[in-house]
């Protein structure tokens, strides 16, 4: 009996399917995502933003030099720095109440809020400026967000990223800021918002090295 040539062709098509391998690194990415998932939402980050040891060292060196420079500047004209610091950079501080302005002289005067906090947070170094922010400024702002994420403090991370977006108006590390925001939203339980932002990120940054990591935040519909 002559074998049916269609059987051979079918077999060749199925063999082509058998030989097909998953995209490169797919298994590793899956494992990474699973480990992150299992380690709990509070540890939802997959890979640190400044991942490799070399980049981490560079970051530390960079941050140290920025801290020294800022420290020197603060020592020289600390009062001046404090006076030009806009109030909107201190969202944690309560806004002055109207009653203070119309209060009687019998009332004890409210304790003045110190112009500069005793322990000045890193965020205090991010100031609005006429000139565009430097790479160091942007790195510093994102480092703060990353530090907050590392401590599982999603609200603080989101505040730092808001400052990056709206006060610093960072441009150079916008993609990295988006990745951190996605992680912060996911960490804070806003998985729908994280998914939406991740979807947009993947569409707008298809060649970003973070795209695979970001894709893990996209919910399947």
């Amino acid at each position, binding site marked *: 009996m002559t074998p049916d040539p269609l059987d051979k062709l079918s077999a060749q098509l199925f063999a082509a399917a058998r030989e097909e391998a*998953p995209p490169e690194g797919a298994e590793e990415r899956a494992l990474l995502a699973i480990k992150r998932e299992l380690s709990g939402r509070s540890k939802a980050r997959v890979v640190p933003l400044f991942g490799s040891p070399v980049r981490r060292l560079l970051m530390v060196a960079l941050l140290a030099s920025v801290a020294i420079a800022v420290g020197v500047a603060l020592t020289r004209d600390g009062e001046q720095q404090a006076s030009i610091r806009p109030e909107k950079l201190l969202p944690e501080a309560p806004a002055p109440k109207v009653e203070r302005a119309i209060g009687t002289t019998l009332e004890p005067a409210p304790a003045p809020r110190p112009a500069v906090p005793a322990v000045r947070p890193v965020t205090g170094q991010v100031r609005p400026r006429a000139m565009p922010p430097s790479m160091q400024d942007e790195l510093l702002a994102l480092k703060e967000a990353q530090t907050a994420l590392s401590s599982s403090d999603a609200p603080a991370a989101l505040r730092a990223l808001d400052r990056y977006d709206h006060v610093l108006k960072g441009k150079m590390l916008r993609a990295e800021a988006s990745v951190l925001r996605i992680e912060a939203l996911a960490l804070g339980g806003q998985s729908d918002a994280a998914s939406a932002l991740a979807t947009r990120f993947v569409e707008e940054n298809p060649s970003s090295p973070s795209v695979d990591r970001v894709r893990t935040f996209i919910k399947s519909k």
Partner: protein
Amino acid sequence: MSQRSIESFVSQHYAFVWRIVRGLGLTPSDAEDAAQQVLMIATRKLDSIAEDRERSFLYGTAVRVANNARRSVRRRREVPEDDSDTAPSSDQSPEQRSELTNARALLHDLMGQMPEKLRRVLLLAEVEELELRAIADLEGIPHGTAASRLRLARERFKKLLLAENHRNPYAREA
């Protein structure tokens, strides 16, 4: 579950899960997402899955996830994604790669025209090369039903291939 056993679980089953979801009509990258989802679901429930039922659980989950993903893909895309983003073998010439890509595209088109139940048994028999007993087990159907479905699936596939054989890169060689 220890990290080591998660690694071995993923390593042991990843390719199987990926091939199943891919064979059920997802593009390579959608198959990657789906495979990840399947394994994530499985690892969450692993403590309650008997060791000899792992593959069965994964298969059932993969079928469900692939069906959901296909519906989702249909909603969000009008133009299907390129099918050629799987890892190429380094010893393939561009012609061979093109031939394989065309063959896989044709296979997916043909499989896509088949009823879901027939498609699944054909996938298990021809791509996974499983025996009828294993197919029946994974599908949760009697052995006889699996045999008749497979026979029907092969007949249906051949008819579809006959109609589309002009696209078959191997037919041009023959």
